[in-house]
């Protein structure tokens, strides 16, 4: 697909093909060789701003992959300080960072990888108070929150502001991923019309499982921004690490959805 004519791309289609510096061409040379991406796609990545909430076992590796791929700006929203139990999966945290701000650790690690990246570290989780401003600041939103209350807030705001939302989640050895385009695909409230009972913030997780879903989410975002490939729009990708099986499930919009109908 010609990314310059892609109507679903959240980045302005007028982005110039030539906004890359010589240094960036050298850094991203092997990536630009991917024919579907090319220099045009790389330029779009450079022009894009992504919001990632939160930057834990999913959001951390996701942010790392987007930073490595050459996104222009990342907004990281995550409250609290690094705890010992974070370190099995939150790859942007370090032992030396224990007890210190999570997002600050993430910001520093990402800049070590890509000093050209602009990083806005917001030391808060998504809430009623900040969700509108956070979503408004980004072209694309990655939902990696461990609580449904945060996911529903993001979903509602993305529908209201017509912003693409990539929703990644996992439990134990399973993970799932879908891409929500307001007005075109089911939204999160179509899938879950009630607040699910009994979900706890703490859940079983091996870091390699969350990182697998994180990197699939990063790839989905790169494709969406650059405008190539088939997206998980109206589809839910299920991954089972026990059997190493992937399934793609067709989703249905809820005609009575309180958020997007």
């Amino acid at each position, binding site marked *: 697909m010609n990314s310059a004519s892609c109507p679903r791309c959240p980045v302005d289609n007028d982005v110039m093909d030539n906004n890359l510096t010589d240094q960036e061409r050298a850094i991203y040379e092997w990536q630009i060789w991917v024919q579907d991406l090319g220099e045009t796609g790389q330029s779009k990545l450079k022009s894009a701003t992504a919001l990632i909430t939160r930057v834990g076992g999913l*959001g951390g590796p996701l942010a790392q992959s987007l930073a490595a791929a050459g996104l222009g700006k990342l907004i990281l929203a995550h409250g609290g300080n690094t705890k010992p139990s974070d370190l099995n999966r939150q790859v942007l945290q370090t032992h030396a960072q224990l007890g210190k701000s999570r997002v600050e650790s993430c910001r520093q690690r990402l800049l070590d990888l890509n000093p050209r990246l602009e990083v806005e570290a917001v030391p808060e989780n998504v809430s009623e108070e900040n969700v509108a401003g956070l979503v408004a600041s980004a072209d694309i939103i990655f939902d990696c*929150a461990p609580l449904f209350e945060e996911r529903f807030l993001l979903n509602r705001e993305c529908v209201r502001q017509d912003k693409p939302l990539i929703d990644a989640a996992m439990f134990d050895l399973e993970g799932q991923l879908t891409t929500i385009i307001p007005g075109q695909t089911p939204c999160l409230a179509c*899938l879950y019309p009630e607040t*699910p009972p009994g*979900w706890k913030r703490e859940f079983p997780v091996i870091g390699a499982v969350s990182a697998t879903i994180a990197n699939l989410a990063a790839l989905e975002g790169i494709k969406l921004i650059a405008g190539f490939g088939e997206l998980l729009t109206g589809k*839910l990708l299920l991954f089972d690490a026990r059997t190493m099986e992937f399934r793609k499930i067709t989703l249905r919009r809820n005609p009575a959805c309180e958020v997007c109908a």
Partner: protein
Amino acid sequence: MKVTIQLLGQARRLAARERLELEIPAESTVHDLLPAILKGADERLSSLLACEGKLRRSVMAILRDETIDPAASGLLQDGDELSLLPPMSGG
């Protein structure tokens, strides 16, 4: 007719087995299968999957890689595998 029920996510963890086989009447809905699925089940599994005798609205019923309406009859065929996927939000 015979169908297999696969439990995913939290339901798999709470169930004694990931899969169970059921002998069901033709035209059964997903809601109709709940008593058999939850026979002898842990209270947490019952609460996760069902509310007032019906599949919870937050649980996806997946048949042949499509989500289906749990109230619809005539969808399940002999030999089918029906997956039940409760919500997950691990991040």
